[in-house]
């Protein structure tokens, strides 16, 4: 296994590269006067974050330099230091030094300490322009004394700091004294910084529950005298080991500041004295003043060392960070790769036609080309892929709102937020998902009373799951509610004339009725899911994405809606078929099964419409060539290949074609964009032989066929049993 620390270290350096870039961009924007309010914060965070990460790996010189830098940036952020051209000049040079420190750390080398020392001195000048020169001197002294190292905590100390070491004895606790209370008392004297020393803490097995193993090291910043401190310990002084060290004289001894091992500190805040008032959200800090109106600044000369530049360029090349790219460019690339795929297929076909042996060098090289082309295609598609997180993140709020509106208690559980899918798909699944979740809470979950009666927890659970399954993304919305009320659904469907009164429907078919337009079993119209608009709209939008939706429900246990979508909208898995010499593509997602019709199963309704008996039901048959106007002659069903397809709302039809030529991934070319919309045709693609093939709009064809058939049938058709 890879060393996890090495991987984390690598992540840290990658992040540093991003932060260095952000730092530089931000500083330049500040210099040009184009900075926004957030820029200063972003610049500060970049340095702060590098400091934090460097601490993990004990990159001391990096931590210290970043700290000095950060301190100055914080002053700009808080408005105590103006971002003058001179100050920004220092910052930009410091950014270079910081970059060098990062690169040196990455390669385990070091940076010439005089460079950091010079930089720190410059910082002192700007940091202390007009304020606390003594501290600046002290810092410089510290720097000199520690060889370019800087102690991080110096600047935060204003008042003299008392050092108090406090080690309670068991008797202290036996007398019901609370160390927290003592620390709180101490805090009244001034800000305290507490470090808990647990080094005397034994293993659990050896721990005496009434023992005392802890020592507190307290740093109290206060102008008080020692008596005041002793007063705090008045009651416990005999039951503890107490050491009080008066503050160092001002101008402290350099290099003594980092306390504790590894600089670790832990402060456990005592509980609040009284019930605190409701905290008020603070208004965002006013943006720090930015040097606006400073135009045409000459960027101060950076460190001229050539090797620095070279190192920079090298490091820049090594960055494996993220970049933002205009979507148009990505789409253009996807288009071109699509062309490449087609071109490659054409070439293969030509080679095949030319009678070149499969084992020949040409054919083998071609095969290699095919692999590469597929790989390029996949990689380009990946560029557009994004995690579904952005959509999932909107759901908790929705759940809260709907829960409040319905008075139900709901818990949302999400899984698979990191599942990636094409950007366009993400944008378009938000609405269907919103609908499904509303529906799950409003109609799926029972009221709290009902749940309790049924012996379920009062709080209902709605689960939202995303996962990849066989080249598609599957989204599941499930609830632990009462499940579909099949009796009512069936009754409603009969009332609405959706199914005949004596239709034999399986449980599955009844459940799927809820996807039909105008269908709602909610006893009362609610303003959450509305009436009748809902699942059919969901089904339509899902279908428009080349997806399918299904439901499985268990009475009393809940329902699960499963939505399966293609990962991308630019490529489609299709079945290549021919109809009277025309090559057509039928989306694989619409095809349920392929059949070879037998003469005795075909029932002519009239000259144009045939019904196919299929496992106890009847499905209208559509001659694809005739319906698209390729031919006046109708194909003999027995001579044809039949495809059972399912369109919007689960309506089915059998499409008749001459032959099936196999499956193929095709690149979708918009017909509207290149020609015009054609009824019955969804889009086009270019085949390997260079010919254009049309992609059938299954929904339109099925709808058309059923309306034809419906107008000639005395009563509504029962759904076929596909099982």
């Amino acid at each position: 296994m890879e060393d996890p620390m090495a991987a984390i270290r690598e992540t840290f350096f990658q992040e540093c590269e991003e932060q260095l870039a952000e730092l530089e961009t931000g500083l330049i924007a500040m210099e040009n006067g184009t900075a926004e309010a957030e820029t200063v914060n972003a610049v500060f965070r970049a340095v702060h974050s590098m400091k934090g990460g460097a601490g993990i790996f004990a990159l001391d010189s990096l931590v210290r330099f970043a700290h000095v830098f950060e301190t100055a940036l914080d002053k700009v952020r808080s408005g105590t230091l103006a971002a003058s051209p001179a100050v920004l000049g220092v910052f930009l040079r410091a950014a270079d030094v910081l970059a060098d420190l990062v690169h040196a750390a990455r390669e385990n080398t070091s940076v010439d300490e005089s460079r950091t020392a010079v930089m720190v001195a410059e910082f002192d000048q700007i940091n202390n322009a007009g304020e606390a020169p003594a501290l600046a001197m002290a810092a410089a002294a510290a720097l000199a004394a520690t060889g370019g190292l800087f102690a991080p905590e110096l600047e935060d100390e204003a008042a003299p700091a008392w050092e108090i070491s406090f080690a309670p004895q068991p008797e202290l606790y036996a007398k019901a004294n609370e160390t927290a209370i003592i620390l709180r008392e101490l805090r009244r004297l001034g800000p305290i910084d507490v470090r808990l020393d647990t080094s005397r803490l034994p293993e659990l097995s050896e721990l005496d529950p009434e023992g005392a193993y802890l020592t507190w090291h307290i740093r109290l910043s206060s102008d008080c005298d020692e008596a005041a401190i002793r007063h705090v310990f008045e009651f416990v002084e005999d039951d503890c080991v107490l050491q009080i060290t008066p503050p160092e004289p001002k101008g402290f001894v350099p290099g003594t500041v980092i306390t504790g091992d590894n600089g670790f500190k832990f402060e456990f805040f005592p509980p609040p004295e009284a019930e605190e008032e409701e905290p008020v959200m603070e208004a965002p800090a006013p943006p720090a003043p930015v040097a606006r109106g400073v135009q045409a600044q000459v960027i101060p000369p950076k460190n001229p060392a050539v090797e620095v530049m070279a190192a920079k360029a090298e490091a820049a090349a090594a960055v494996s960070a993220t970049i933002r790219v205009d979507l148009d460019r990505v789409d253009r690339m996807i288009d071109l790769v699509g062309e490449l795929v087609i071109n490659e297929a054409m070439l293969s076909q030509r080679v095949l036609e030319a009678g070149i042996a499969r084992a020949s060098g040409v054919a083998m090289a071609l095969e290699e080309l095919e692999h590469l082309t597929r790989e390029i295609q996949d990689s380009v598609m990946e560029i557009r892929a994004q995690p579904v997180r952005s959509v999932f993140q909107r759901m908790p709020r929705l759940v809260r709102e709907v829960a409040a509106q319905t008075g139900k208690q709901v818990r949302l559980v999400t899984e698979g937020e990191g599942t990636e899918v094409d950007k366009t798909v993400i944008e378009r699944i938000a609405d269907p998902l919103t609908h499904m979740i509303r529906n799950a809470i409003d109609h799926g979950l029972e009221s709290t009373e009902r749940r309790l009666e049924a012996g379920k927890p009062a709080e209902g659970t709605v689960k939202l799951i995303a996962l990849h399954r066989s080249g598609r993304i599957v989204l599941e919305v499930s609830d632990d509610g009462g499940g579909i009320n099949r009796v009512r659904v069936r009754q409603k469907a009969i009332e609405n004339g959706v199914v005949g009164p004596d239709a034999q429907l399986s449980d599955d078919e009844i459940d799927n009725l809820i996807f039909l337009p105008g269908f709602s079993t909610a006893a009362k119209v609610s303003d959450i899911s509305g009436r009748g608009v809902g699942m059919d709209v969901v089904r339509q939008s899902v279908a428009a994405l080349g997806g399918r939706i299904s439901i499985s429900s268990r009475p009393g246990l809940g329902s699960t809606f499963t939505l399966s979508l293609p990962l991308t909208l630019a490529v489609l898995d299709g079945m290549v078929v021919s109809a009277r010499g025309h090559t057509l593509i039928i989306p694989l997602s619409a095809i349920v099964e392929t059949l070879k019709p037998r003469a005795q199963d075909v029932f002519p309704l009239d000259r144009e419409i045939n019904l196919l008996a299929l496992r106890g039901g009847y499905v209208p048959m559509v001659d694809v060539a005739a319906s698209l106007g390729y031919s006046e002659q109708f194909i003999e069903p027995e001579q044809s290949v039949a495809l059972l397809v399912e369109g919007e709302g689960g309506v089915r039809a059998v499409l008749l074609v001459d032959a099936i030529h196999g499956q193929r991934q095709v690149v979708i070319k918009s017909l509207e964009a290149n020609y015009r919309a054609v009824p019955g045709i969804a889009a086009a693609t270019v085949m390997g032989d260079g010919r254009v093939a049309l992609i059938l709009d299954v929904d339109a064809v099925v709808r058309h066929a059923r309306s034809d058939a419906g107008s000639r049938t005395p009563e509504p058709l029962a759904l076929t049993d596909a099982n």
Partner: protein
Amino acid sequence: MSTTVLTVDDSRAMRDMLRHSLAAAGFRVIQAEDGLHGLEMLEAETPDVIVTDINMPRMDGFGFIEAVRRDDTRKALPVLVLTTEVDVDKKNRARAAGATGWIVKPFDPVKLIEAIRRVSA
């Protein structure tokens, strides 16, 4: 049931580090990238302890802690601040916001784990 710790930090390296060391100590670790993300995670999860950074984009640690405390059910949820900030004012601000403890980076995994165990006991 293992203790669930929600860590909120905008640095990937820090998140990886926290995940690595806390998971090794047997905690279940869930992670957020900033305060807002943390709040979103809290909608779906009920951690036993939160460890949060202060300086983060979108919503910083102060705002996050305040928001956590506004929810009555989370008044007693321990929130530890893990930061490089040594400024006493900031520390006091975190405490006023409702933080349970304050840990200064660079963190010592052993002690962080100890602190988490203590506040989650």
